[in-house]
């Protein structure tokens, strides 16, 4: 009995030793040292958002072809959008680094960036460079994916607020005459200033229709006011020292945020929006617009653009435009995703092959045309193609093209989610005045940044 236990112990020690030696000697191949044959038989785990149903057809029909061609087996792990950052960070910190490729949302990019491989080295091994790749991207994407001079994520998916509007109403001669009589200038189609939007919202508000609708709750609501704040001339959430952009360090910006909040809430207090706006998120504003109840929908309109195009049979022509900025040249906010390869991945070369394949124009075009819903590509060429095809509305493409790059730090997601969303909902619910909103939010953001120890 004792001998058996001894033998068992010796076997366990020997096995552990073998594993340890194997693990130590299993160096990750550098990009230069790999060729296609080396990658055959490797399995990579790819973490993707379950919300990105645009890629359903790609995963179903194209991925098997990639696997057959390269011999690389791809294990897709689909997780909720809100869980993807935590799932990834858990995996690379305490989970043994099982993920080889990940889609990362903007708020999570900063926290994950130190764990990511530099994609520039892979591009260079392929005869290209990070600069070459970024040159073909929309403006904000040229800086948003780079951390400490490292291209941590491959620019992939973008979104921005845009306005879908009942273009046929705007083109109606009777409406045009009535508008000119009431406001003294031609009905703008599309509008180019914020004041014009107010006039239009008032003009199209009737007992049965609202002039404008936007999200009044949750993440879509918070990003609506962020879009306006950016368009008011505020450059992001944190300055170069990580202080809150409209906290005590920037009293001038507090005024701009107050103006943005006043501008938005005036639509509600003047009755130009549906009464229930406080409960609305993107799905609700879209439904409201598609039901024919509203002249302008200021939201993530690209997500349902195909439904809006289809609804033209009953609603008449629907157009889109970028929401005007208070000062010319100030873009709004963008929401974006990047794909990255963890530095600790044991299959970086195979992961890079997958990256090149999934980011290729053919595959992205497949996702844009055959998937469920639409995303806005960050590649300028692909974006132009998507607009030409009528897949992405012009107004959203313009918003993305003009979107402002802003600093993302590990605390940005917290500032927006735990402080920004409740504050916005209180503003819309009339529990905070615009001035209180700007001041309270700024102070809370500064406190959170201080508490995180990231301010200089």
């Amino acid at each position, binding site marked *: 009995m004792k001998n058996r236990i001894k033998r068992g112990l010796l076997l366990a020690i020997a096995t552990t030793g073998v594993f340890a030696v194997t693990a130590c000697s299993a160096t990750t191949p550098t990009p230069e040292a790999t060729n296609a044959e080396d990658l055959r038989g490797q399995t990579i785990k790819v973490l993707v958002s379950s919300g990105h149903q645009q890629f359903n057809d790609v995963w179903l029909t194209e991925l098997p072809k990639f696997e057959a061609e390269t011999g690389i087996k791809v294990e897709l792990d689909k997780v909720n959008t809100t869980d993807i950052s935590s799932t990834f*960070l858990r995996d690379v910190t305490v989970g043994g680094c099982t993920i080889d490729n990940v889609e990362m949302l903007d708020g999570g990019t900063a926290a994950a960036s130190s764990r990511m491989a530099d994609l520039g080295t892979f591009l260079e091994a392929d005869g290209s460079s990070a600069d070459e790749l970024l040159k073909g991207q929309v403006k904000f994407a040229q800086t948003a994916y780079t951390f400490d001079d490292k291209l941590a994520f491959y620019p992939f998916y973008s979104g921005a607020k845009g306005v879908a509007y009942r273009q046929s109403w705007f083109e109606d001669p009777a409406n045009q005459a009535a508008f000119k009589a009431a406001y003294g200038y031609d009905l703008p189609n599309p509008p180019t200033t914020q004041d014009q939007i107010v006039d239009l919202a008032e003009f199209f508000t009737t007992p049965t229709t609202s002039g404008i609708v936007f999200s009044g709750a949750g993440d879509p609501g918070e990003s609506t006011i962020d879009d306006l704040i950016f368009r008011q001339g505020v450059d992001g959430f944190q300055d170069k020292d990580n202080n809150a952009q409209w906290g005590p360090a920037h009293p001038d910006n507090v005024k701009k945020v107050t103006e943005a909040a006043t501008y938005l809430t005036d639509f509600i207090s003047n009755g130009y929006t549906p*009464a*229930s706006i*406080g*409960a609305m998120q993107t799905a609700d504003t879209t439904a409201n617009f598609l039901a024919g109840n509203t002249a302008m929908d200021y939201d993530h309109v690209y997500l349902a653009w195909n439904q809006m195009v289809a609804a033209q049979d009953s609603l008449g022509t629907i157009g889109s435009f970028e929401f005007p900025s208070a000062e010319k040249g100030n873009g709004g906010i963008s929401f974006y995703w990047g794909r990255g390869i963890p530095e600790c991945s044991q299959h970086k070369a195979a992961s890079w092959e997958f990256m090149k394949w999934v980011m290729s124009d053919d595959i992205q075009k497949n996702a844009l045309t055959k998937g469920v819903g639409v995303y806005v590509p960050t590649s300028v060429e692909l974006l132009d193609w998507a607009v030409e095809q009528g897949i992405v509305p012009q107004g959203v493409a313009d918003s993305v093209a003009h979107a402002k790059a802003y600093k993302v730090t*590990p605390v940005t997601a917290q500032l927006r989610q*735990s402080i920004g969303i*409740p*504050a916005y909902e*209180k503003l819309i619910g009339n529990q905070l005045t615009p001035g209180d909103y700007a001041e309270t939010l700024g102070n809370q953001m500064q406190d959170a940044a201080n508490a995180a120890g990231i301010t200089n």
Partner: protein
Amino acid sequence: MTEATAQIPPGAVKSLGKPAPRRRGIASVNYWWFLIPAMIGVFALIAVPIGFSVYFSLRNYNLQLGSDSFAGIDNYVRLLTGRNADFIAALGRTLLYVVVVIALDFVLAMSQALLLFSMRAGWAKFWRAIFILPILIIPTASAVFWRNVMYAPHNGEFLKVLGLSDVVSPPLGDPQLAFWAIIVTVVWAWSPWVFILLSAGLDQIDKSILEASMVDGATYFQRLRTIILPLMKPVIFVTLSFKALDSFLAFPFVWIMTMGGPGNSTHVLSTYIYQQAFTLLDYGNGSAMAIVMLVISGGLSIAAIFIWQRFYGKEA
């Protein structure tokens, strides 16, 4: 004495009547072997997760910020001294939620059960099937249904049916109403569970006692107050104890319908903790909150068991 017993020697009878003492060592060793699988389960599924939570709660562990350092009891001090106002608000709201949900569930379910108790068997079966329908829908689907159909901001069918669509704004967007709107949904969805248990309890009451009281001229409310409710006390106690714990841990309805909004006005403890730990990745703080919640729910459980043993243990 029968023939059979007559043949048994006196010593043997004695040994049959009083079992021989067990050989303590061997018997206890065998007994403990059988407990090992259960102990492994308890250790792996309860002790280890709680141990990890306690460990994380003593650290400043935030994946988003990349921080991980020993914090001692700082996280607990921040919570218990009220420096985290949102946590205190969520705790207060959770307790209010438990009390209101239990009260409404009990009143509604007991009324339904009593109604069916006095009904003819055929009709009672029919109505029982109707009453339990909501419980057949999974909670997530119920929450989505109420969020998107009944309270839908652009339709507001529920409010239209009540004739209140022009009077009351869609409740989930109103910080004053959202919490109560969730409670309405929860009571609709889960009061049938209370109804089933109370109804089963009522069916166990000996009807001859009630018939005797009727012969003696007792009114319905006298029978209810002096016979039905006293006999139902153990069932009511167990049902509401379970319901209290279940409500304390409420998560799906709040998360799906409002995610704690608008303006944090509907966060209960579980949704607030989830947000802190899994959305904001503040595991240290989230773990401390989870431990506080565990202590409170554990206290409630122990109190329920104690009360049960004190008042109903002998009856049971």
